[in-house]
């Protein structure tokens, strides 16, 4: 588990990116429902590390982030791509202790 930021650094429905010690990147989200999620930051469709900059919302009640590049939706809790179930992004475990967000390996 790597501490990446404080919970108070996050704003609802607005992701941030964090750099992990192995050089990989995670996109960390706080939803307006109050849950925290961490997904791989690389959008598999463009190869760009930008998933943290997508719009957060829901599809049919399922919380998702939508890639800012070509607009595919990824389920926040599973990383699965709803527009192409054969793809997805890794999900990182997250814990929040004393207001600090820690992210683990997928």
């Amino acid at each position, binding site marked *: 588990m790597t501490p990446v930021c404080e919970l108070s650094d996050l704003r609802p429905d607005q992701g941030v*990116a964090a750099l992990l010690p192995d050089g990989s990147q995670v996109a960390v989200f706080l939803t307006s429902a109050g849950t925290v999620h961490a997904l791989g930051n690389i959008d598999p469709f463009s*190869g760009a590390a930008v998933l943290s900059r*997508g719009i957060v919302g829901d599809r049919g009640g399922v*919380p998702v982030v939508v890639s800012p590049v*070509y607009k*595919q939706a990824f389920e926040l809790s599973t990383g699965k791509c709803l527009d192409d179930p054969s793809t997805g992004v890794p999900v990182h475990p997250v814990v929040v202790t004393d207001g600090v967000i820690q992210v683990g390996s997928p």
Partner: protein
Amino acid sequence: MTRTLVVVGHGMVGHRLVEALREKDVTGQWRIVVFAEETRPAYDRVALSSYVDSWDAGSLSLAPHDDDAVELHLDDKVVHLDREAKVVRTQRGRVQPYDALVLATGSVPFVPPVPGRDLPGCHVYRTIDDLDGIRATVESARSVGRHAGMVLGGGLLGLEAANALRGMGISPHVVELGPRLMPLQVDEGGGGLLKRLVEKLDLTVHTGTSATSIEQDRGRLLAKLSNGVELDLDVVVFSAGIRPRDELARSFGLTVGERGGIVVDKACRTSDEHIYAIGECANLDGMVYGLVAPGYSMAEVVADRLLGGSAEFPGADMSTKLKLLGVDVASFGDAHAKQEGALEVVVNDAVAGTYAKVVVSDDAKTLLGGILVGDASKYMSLRPLVGRPVPGDPVALIGPEGGVELTLPHDAQVCSCHAVTKQHIVDVVNSGEAVDVPGIKACTKAGTGCGSCVPMLKKLLSECGIEQSRALCEHFDHSRADLFEIIRSTGITTFSELISRHGRGFGCDICKPAVASILASLDQGHVLEGEQATLQDTNDRFLANMQRNGTYSVVPRIPGGEITPEKLIVIGEVARDFGLYTKITGGQRIDLFGATVDQLPQIWKRLVDAGFESGHAYGKALRTVKSCVGTTWCRYGVQDSVSLAIELELRYRGLRSPHKLKSAVSGCARECAEARGKDFGIIATENGWNLYVGGNGGFTPRHADLIASDVDTETLIKLIDRFLMFYIRTADRLQRTSTWIESLEGGLDHLRDVIVNDSLGICADLEAAMAKHVDNYADEWRGVLEDPEKLSRFTSFVNAPGTPDPTISFREERGQKVPVLLGVPSVSQAEVSR
């Protein structure tokens, strides 16, 4: 072996024949040689009167035959026909053999033998040259004050000519020999109402009389009418009917009708089996058709016959619907109840100014025809029912409540311009080839002629069950326009309040940016303020355009494309210092590519300090107002296009809208700024400005349409204010102005009514809304630089600010850096279909 088809006349019907044959002749059996008397290729004669709006002949153009198999000789009339040798000879001496010959020579206006009819100032109304002649007469008119004109003939064309004269600033007198206006189409009751309605519009109608002489009188014309009235005039237009141009046929021994017209059979063949005649010059079953749709049918028949087919002329619908001087008039079927025992049912509402009549069979069971004046909205549903059972009580068909819902039978013709049946439309819709009106237009041509069937196309779409849902997305049942009104009237300022009160769920990438755009249009503060930041689409989120590798581009505003050397140097220095790829855009400004999120504020700090502002290249907002150099430098310029472009760009900068907005100003009709390819384009005239709306490039290019001409700058800006605000309030999300105008019930005419004539009474409100925008404008990038909270979000990594994204790398091309590709992106279907 290739055979040669010679076509005489390149009018609308000749043009259609060439198009139809080229489309059907897949094996290239025919080479086509066309001789045209006029100096320009075929144009839209039906729309001739609109020439007066712009004096731009190009706006009437029909699609050119871009085709090696077609040879078009302009300004070269056919004067001789040798049927034995199968050769024609032209005025310029060209000799052309043919295997088949088609006469598509149209007709000429009939000019009654009134003494003085050849005097200068007397004209007919048929060609672009005729209208140029009328214009020249009007411009050289000597009278002071408003000029006067006379149109001889109160039929359909005469009223159209009168309207065109009005457009040239002339008060027209309409002189009709018959007892009422449009005697062929309407009856006494309808004609009476029509007269009352048009007289409100500065037209003087004289019925039951005719001109006995025209004389020259102190530099003007004096017309004497048979009822003793004398009129002082500047211009006279004859519009007393047409005569088929059958002179070639007559001289060279083809059979012509008693009252003119080249006699043809149902295959459109003349008395010589190698010669066909089509359009207004043909006489079929004793009828000469003065409308374009029957001519088009004949062209299709001949194209088929030339390829060995056996098509026959299907008969023609002589129904007409038109909007003259703002008055709807429609007549269809047996409008005059000529059939034995036919019954007439009339609803004459003098207060509302509407007159409606239906004609039914003696047992009141079959609809035979009808006339509508003042309100012709029922035309499209009644006309196709001619010859079919009346659904219910005939009065109910035209009664004020219009009680009966009409469903069309499947073989009913919906589009009479292109002879498209309901079945055809339903087929393309059910097979999924078309899902909306533009789709139907593309698949069937329906709706691309006079446009009067478009409302019916919409109805058919919903009959087929594809009522295009107005719901914005799964979170809102409202359309964007509804949400706009909800937000405007309730004063809601946040997305969360809106969705909790009027929607469901958490929102998505469709409704969030749409609401963000509405809030921004209503000037609810900075677009990255508080919750608004989370609503913004990709590019707005960082006020820059995201590139394929996750970097951003920077486009400072350069109003009108004018820039000082000092500012150019600043851009150059910034690009050099941050290592940005630099490119001149298609919008007359400069794009700097390859900036990381962390660099954006540093770059903008330098630019803002040097006096630059955001160019909104990232926003659904005003992009650029392009300009040409105009009077300042150009020897042809008639107005200062650069100053106007800058004024407009500064006025509307930062204005958020349903889709991006582009504009341009050209200093003369040469149009170097490509204004007609823009959402709103302005072209200078000697007297002011012409305003065009609804153009765009992009996926479906469309030329903008003229909405006002020769207006001064103040009026122009007022009209643009209204146009833009009306668009912002009522368009769908991501609907450019072009498709928005097409989607408006009543199209461009309706738009003109709203923003020029203020028919909805909302213009003051629209102008006030724009004034508020202009007053509240503030540069978005300065807003970020001055707010540490907003600035803090411009970091690549929350736990390592300033560290560049390790996945981004560049290589060099032609001396500048470009991104190393991250594997070619595969765009999924989900994205494409959105």
